[in-house]
């Protein structure tokens, strides 16, 4: 039943957007002129395309995010059974987190967390 409802919610979202888009298309007026179809950049004609190389800083944070996100994923199962697993599990997770903190400290030291 849960998966049925999940698919229902997904389809509701998609159907809602689809339906309203069609409705808006029927209701909304249409008119054409050349300037309207240009990208909006505050009245100045655009120079070049926007699909170009982009600042690398954003990707750096994305890579760091990946590291920590995978870590959180590993920790979720532990958190659920933590109470019954006892001290050994707690110590191993503390060790795991310690290695991660080392990673963060390394990135910090190397200046990966600075925005230049």
């Amino acid at each position, binding site marked *: 039943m849960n998966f049925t409802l*999940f698919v229902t919610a997904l389809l509701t979202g998609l159907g*809602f957007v689809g339906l309203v888009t069609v409705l808006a298309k029927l209701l909304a007026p249409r008119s054409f002129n050349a300037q309207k179809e240009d990208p909006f950049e505050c009245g100045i004609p655009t120079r070049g395309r926007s699909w170009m190389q*982009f600042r690398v800083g954003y990707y750096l944070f994305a890579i760091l995010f990946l590291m920590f996100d995978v870590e959180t994923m590993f*920790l979720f199962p532990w958190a659920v059974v933590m109470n019954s697993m006892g001290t050994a599990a707690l110590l191993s997770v503390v060790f795991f987190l310690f290695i991660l903190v080392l990673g963060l400290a390394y990135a910090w030291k190397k200046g990966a967390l600075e925005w230049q």
Partner: protein
Amino acid sequence: MFDFSDVTTPLHAFLSRLLGESLAVVTECVLVAVALISIYAVFAMIMIYAERKVCAAFQCRIGPDRVGKWGWLQVISDVLKMMTKEVINLRQTDRFLHRIAPFLVVTASMTTFACLPWNKGAQIIDFNVGVFFFLAVGSVGVVGILLAGWSSNNKYSLIGAMRSGAQIISYELSIGMVMLTMICLTGTMSFSEICQQQADLGWNIFRGHIIALPAFIIYLIAGNAECNRGPFDLPESESELTAGYHTEYSGMDFGYYYLAEYLNIVVCAGIAATIFLGGWAPFVVPGLDGFNEVMSMIPGFVWFVGKTFFVIGLLLWQRWTFPRLRIDQILTLEWKYLIPISMTLLIGMALLVSFGLTF
């Protein structure tokens, strides 16, 4: 305590008798879809109105007051206006990606909205890995935002989307870590069980006391950043980027982003109410039996909506009090402060639970 399965179980039995098993399930799914859309729309409208009025109060203005008494029809007229505005298709966009981006954003927010436990037995999606599922589906919204910015072929959109992406994924770590902290306490990931436990044992924010309170504060900060709001509204900082990633969306296409943004606040506040403030669990004080009786008489969904709006109030307060941060300040706050703090909280909570220091 009012249990919503008292309504759904007889309804299911009645429909099965009337239509047969499989057709009954289909009918129920349609009912769920209709309910989901209506609640979604109603909450979006309440949110937009509340935001405008609260923001006006913070800035010593009156806010919308022309359409209807106290301007309560303003939102409806805005929706009508958005529906009847032209949707402009630009010459140089990536048409396909430009079209599917709103689908992703709205579907992600609607599916996470369906995770909220409104009342005992009134929760649409209730997986046993609920919290995990919520985080996973919530992340799809970022893909929509990045697609919107990239496909628009507009430099403002691109910069807005990139900022938004960097900010949302960064703060998602804090959100995940804080939720992890609370799961250490509850020992379950299902939202309904988390609520049930809090109804039996007391709210998590009291049970986790010294750790749960800072966790709640971190959740509020990160929640505002997740919704691209508050001091973290860089992705659409209107004074430098016109509107950020949805600059090139017009008419109803813009409306979807507007809708999803406001609903994300409701979802964010609802999840905070669930994992910290007890969800639909009433406020009880051990020992005061008469008081507890009265509190338990109030149905669960009233508690849930009340708590959600309390958290929304906190989020709005934060949003309209602080000035906007720069991107480097935002990332510094997350990576150098919130992540170390939330990791410490996680260890602290694990120790607290191991030594049985929770209430």
